[in-house]
Structure formats: structure tokens, C-alpha cells
């Protein structure tokens, strides 16, 4: 076996094996989830973490496409998720249920349903269409104005969907419910996985390179012949499309939809996930969202309850402390680890292979290195004695001279 350290680049040309390993990993992941579903009770918290994590990773990746890859600081993600969630719900509530859902609006005006998959795509399309309209004025703005304008649009969309006069369509400020949902954890994984794969393909295409050029230097990109507005508009629409799809998935996960859940805080949450994962890293966003969801809903839960250790009450622990700790961690990441978990690198099969190889090499050469270190130490110790010996000798000689 090769005992030298390897970089991921050494594996990059070995495409066939890489693809095979990638496929095996994906199948193993899905199979693992399937196995988990067979063995653990379906009410266990791990499933809701996995489902929500998958949904959030899709929306985080879609936000990363804008913020990390195109350099557009947009804060409208919650608004587009709202559009997707409502579109999905409105078009899939079974006709016979509509009277009970739209009880204040005589059953609403839409009296037909479309298949779930079609509704998912439609959710994305509606979000993308609205993004196209919004993009026309907004994308001409510079970074921070763009942030505020998109934030404002999300608020306007929320206000419109809560408006009573549109109640026949949106049910006003009442919840939408009784639409088809998913029960298997594999469902959000598959949908989000396919969408994220599409985004990956986009980013590695010539369009993706154009987006990165715009991010790095707008003026230089324009000089190279990239149509700034066209590409920004495109990125904005594509990002909104996937935000819409993830909104629809979130609607399925929550089983009810109200406009009031899609607040600015939600966009902030997604932005922080992107920052934790690393701006400009898709795998970072995915890892970041699973970590974030797991921490905030599961692992840090204990911070919200009063705890006793040997009868001693741990101070500070009570409702809300979890979020404070969380916010402090995020501030530390923002201030000191600005690149997040992944920076702008990607977790790829070749990286995993290189990492594994280096780990094996590390362990394989461990005995040799320990021996080597021992020998070195001995030699150093030997040298030291000789050095001190000579020093003492000279000292003695010097003393004799005096």
C-alpha cells in the first residue's frame, strides 16, 4: 500500500470509482433511514429532525445559491417559502374537505385538486414567477438595499396572504389544513436530494461560473461579457423556485399552514444555517442545517429545563436559555470562524477517499513513528549528554585555567 499522504486531487481523475462510491453512499443513506424507520417507533424525535433537516437543507442551499454563489444578499427566503407552502396547500386540499377548511369563505373558489407532485412543481413555479416580478425592480439595487427590499417584499407577501378580502383563496388569517402530507422520512430526503442535485449541476455549469464571476467582481464580470441583470434574475428565480418547493415540503411536514409562521426570523435562521455551513458550500449548507435543527430541537433541549445534579440546581437553565446559548455560538462563529464549517470547499467522494486514506496511513505508520520518535529522543538525549559533558569539560578546563 502507498504510505504517503494523498490530496483529494489525486482521486479526482478516478471518476468511475468516485461515482460508484457516491451511488453506494446515497443508497446506504436511504437504506439506513429505511432501516431506522423499521426499527424505531415513528414518533421518535430523530424522524422529525431528519425531515425538518432535509427541508431546511434545501432552502439553505437555495439561499446559498444567491448569497454564497451569486453574491446577492437577499433576505426574502421566508416569503418565497410562504408562496410555495400556500400554493401547495391551496391546490391539494381535497374538494370534499374544502367546506370545513374554508368555513368562513363558503369553501373557497378553487374547487379542484391537482396531483401532489404537480403541486410541488407548481409551488416552485409560483415562487419563481413572483421572484421574476420582484426581481425587475429589486435586483438593480446594491447589496444592503437589496437585503432590505427583499425583506420588505417578504413582509408584503405575508400581509397579502393574511388579508381577509383574499380569504376565498388564502383562507385569510385562518390555517389551511387537511391536504395530503408525507409519513415516510424518505420522501423529503428524495425531493430535497433531487433538488439539491439539480442545484449542484447548475453551479458546475457555465451559468454557475457566471454567477461566481458576478460574486467576485461585478464590473469585471460585465467586462467579460456576462449580462449582469439576466444572470442575477436567473439566479433569483431559480433560488426562489427551490425555496418554494421547500416551503411546500414544510407545509407537508407541519400539516397546517399559516402565513404568520413565515416571519423575518425564519429567514434569519436560514441565513445563519448558511453561515454555519460556509457561504459558497452546498455540502456545508446541508451539514449546517442538519446540525442546526438537531441542536435546536434535540441536543440542546436540556438547556430549557431546570436540571439537578446530585440535588444541586444548575443555575440559569430555564425556558429560553437554549436559544441564548445558540445565539452566542452563532456570534462566535460569525466573529471568529467566518468561513463556517466548510468555507467554500465541498465534501466530495474524492475528499472522503483522500481523508480515509490519510487516516489509514496515519494509523499504519503509527508504530513506526512511535519507534522513530523514541529513537530520536534517545539520540537527542545522547546528544544532550555529550553537549553537557563537553560544556562541563570546558568549564572545568576554564576553571583550571583560572
Amino acid at each position, binding site marked *: 500500500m502507498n504510505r504517503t499522504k494523498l490530496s483529494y486531487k489525486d482521486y479526482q481523475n478516478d471518476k468511475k470509482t468516485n461515482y460508484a462510491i457516491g451511488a453506494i453512499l446515497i443508497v446506504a443513506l436511504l437504506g439506513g433511514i429505511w432501516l431506522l424507520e423499521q426499527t424505531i417507533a415513528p414518533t421518535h424525535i430523530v424522524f422529525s429532525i431528519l425531515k425538518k433537516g432535509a427541508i431546511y437543507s434545501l432552502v439553505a442551499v437555495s439561499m446559498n445559491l444567491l*448569497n454564497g454563489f451569486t*453574491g446577492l*444578499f437577499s433576505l426574502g427566503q421566508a416569503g418565497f417559502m410562504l408562496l410555495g407552502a400556500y400554493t401547495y396547500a391551496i391546490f391539494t386540499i381535497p374538494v370534499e374537505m374544502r367546506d370545513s377548511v374554508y368555513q368562513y369563505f363558503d369553501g373557497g373558489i378553487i374547487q379542484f385538486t391537482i396531483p401532489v407532485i404537480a403541486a410541488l412543481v407548481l409551488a416552485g413555479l409560483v415562487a419563481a414567477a413572483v421572484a421574476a416580478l420582484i426581481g425587475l*425592480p*429589486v435586483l*438593480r*439595487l446594491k*447589496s*444592503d*438595499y437589496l*437585503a*432590505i*427590499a427583499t*425583506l*420588505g*417584499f417578504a*413582509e*408584503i407577501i405575508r*400581509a*397579502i396572504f*393574511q*388579508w*381577509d378580502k383574499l380569504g376565498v383563496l388564502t383562507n385569510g388569517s385562518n390555517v389551511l389544513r387537511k391536504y395530503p402530507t408525507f409519513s415516510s422520512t424518505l420522501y423529503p430526503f428524495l425531493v430535497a436530494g433531487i433538488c439539491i442535485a439539480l442545484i449542484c449541476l447548475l453551479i458546475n455549469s457555465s451559468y454557475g461560473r457566471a454567477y461566481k464571476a458576478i460574486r467576485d467582481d461585478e*464590473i469585471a464580470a460585465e467586462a467579460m461579457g456576462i449580462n449582469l441583470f439576466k444572470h442575477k434574475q436567473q439566479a433569483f428565480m431559480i433560488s426562489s423556485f427551490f425555496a418554494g418547493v421547500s416551503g411546500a415540503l414544510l407545509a407537508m411536514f407541519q400539516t397546517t399552514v399559516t402565513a404568520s409562521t413565515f416571519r*423575518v*426570523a425564519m429567514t*434569519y435562521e436560514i*441565513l*445563519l444555517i448558511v*453561515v454555519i455551513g460556509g*457561504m459558497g458550500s452546498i455540502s456545508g449548507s446541508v451539514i449546517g442545517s442538519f446540525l442546526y435543527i438537531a441542536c435546536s430541537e434535540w441536543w440542546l433541549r436540556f438547556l430549557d429545563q431546570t436540571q439537578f445534579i446530585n440535588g444541586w440546581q444548575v443555575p440559569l437553565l*430555564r*425556558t*429560553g*436559555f437554549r*436559544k*441564548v446559548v*445558540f*445565539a*452566542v455560538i*452563532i*456570534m462566535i462563529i*460569525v*466573529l471568529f470562524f*467566518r468561513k463556517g464549517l466548510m468555507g467554500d470547499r465541498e465534501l466530495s467522494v474524492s475528499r472522503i477517499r483522500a481523508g480515509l486514506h490519510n487516516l489509514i496511513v496515519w494509523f499504519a505508520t503509527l508504530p513506526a513513528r512511535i519507534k522513530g520518535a523514541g529513537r530520536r529522543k534517545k539520540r537527542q538525549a545522547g546528544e544532550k549528554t555529550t553537549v553537557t559533558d563537553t560544556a562541563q569539560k570546558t568549564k572545568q578546563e576554564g576553571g583550571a585555567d583560572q
Partner: protein
Amino acid sequence: MEQFIETLTSFFSTNLPYILAGISVGGQYALIAIGYTMVYGILRLINFAHGDIFMAAGLILIYAAASMPLYLAIPLMIVVTVLIGFLVERVAYKPLRSAPRMSIMISAIGVSYLIQNLALYVTGGLTKVYPAIPWISDSVTIGSATTKMVTLVTPVLTIVLVIALVLLIRYTKIGMAMRAVSRDFETSQLMGIKIDRVISATFIIGTFLAAIGSLLFFTNYTGVTPTIGAMPGLKAFVAAVFGGIGSIPGAVIGAFIIGICENIIKGLGWTTFSDAFTFALLIVILIVKPSGLFGEKNTDKV
């Protein structure tokens, strides 16, 4: 023409309470907006945490007033709020001064998230009742409308404070330094201006005005919740953009216009859209006249 005047007067008499409320809210927005516009003028940063500092000022007064008389609680609240503003700048913005602009904005959002969550933790998610401040909480009747004294106090106090601030910026040394730094960050540094001190002074002035604003704002409301600062904060920012970001009189005029329009919209029965209106206005301004009413024109240089 006569008919027009008649409809106008009838409009004013029916909407008088809303217009009065608008002027009052406008004054409060103005006091917040100054903080935004000054910080933006110098650091080119939207201080997303400003609205939350404003909320924190409200909470601090509630907790201070619970254990001491108001004449001590109010100065204490102002001092603590200013200290928070100063610390936020030192801890969250100063280390990122040479970082890309997006990082500083994310840091600002992080601070906003932190302050909101801290407030949630401290209050336990309950709405805290704001103490009634004597004299400015008293009711007065003007024409057909009955309001609190604060409605009349706010515009006067706002204008006095703004005049004082404009004088400070025009005639004192620190004001001159602020103008220089907002004109050119690097050159002013080369000219021996201590940038950090100027930026701290800006944050101190901004948060001081926000503290006064919170005093007036929350008197009109029954309680303080952790997220109450976000909306006035965003609206104040829109006001600052409307007036031309970096311009103090612009921010004040913008704030009054937004406050009045918003309340008239409420009066017309479109309450759902009173928040949306502000943002629609923002987008229209940014498209039609991005430099705002009194802003200076900026061109991009390579």
C-alpha cells in the same frame, strides 16, 4: 375649488386622531432613524440590531422602574442602553472592520438574534407592562380627538433633539470628525482622526436617541415583547432611506411622512397593509430616486 377645500377639511377633521397619532409615531421613528442614518453614513452598515436595542431600552426601564423611582430609573435606562450600543459596536462590528460588507451585516443580524433571544429568556416570553410615566401619559383633548400628552411632546422633543444634534455635528470637533469620516474613511484616518473613537461616538449618540425614542414609543403601547423592536426598526430604516441615507434632516422628514401615511392608512381601514405600505414606499424610492430626498449621489468606482 371650494368643494375641494371642503372635502379636505372634512378629511382632516375625521382623520385628526390618526394624523395626530401619525405625527407622534413619526417623531419616534425619527429618533430611531437618526441612529440608522448616522451609522450607515459612516460605516455603510445597516445596523439590524438597532431596533432590538430600542426594544431592550424598553425592557430595561421596566425592570429598573420595578425597583427604583422613575427619576432614577430613566437616567439609568439611558446609560445602560448607551452602554449596550457601545458594546455591540466594540464586540460585534469592530473586529470585522476590514471584512467584506456581507460579514458585518450577518454579524448585525446575529446581534439582533442574540438580543431578541436574551430578551425572550429574561422575560420568559411574557409581555411586560410598561410603567406609566407621569405627565406624558396624561390625556389631553385637541379638537375632536383625545390623545395622550406624549403625542404633543414627541414632535417638539424630536425637533429640539435634532436641532441640538445638527449643531453638534456642524460646530464641534467630534462633529467635524464625523463628517470627515463619512466622506472618506481612509483619508480621514490618514489625517489623524481616531476612527474608532468617532464610530463609538456615533453609536453612543444613535442609541441615546433610540433610548429617548423608546421612552416615547412604549408610553403609547401597553407592553414590551422581545420582537416588538424589529418593525419600528425596519420602518425607521426605510425612513432613513427615504430621506436620503446619511442625511439627518432627511431621516426626520422621512420618518414623519411614513408615520403619518401609515396611520392614515390605518384610519382608512387597511390596517393589514400599514406595514406593507412602508416597504412598498421603500421599493418605489429605491427605483425612482435611490439617493432619497436629501441624499448625495454616489457613483461606483472600480
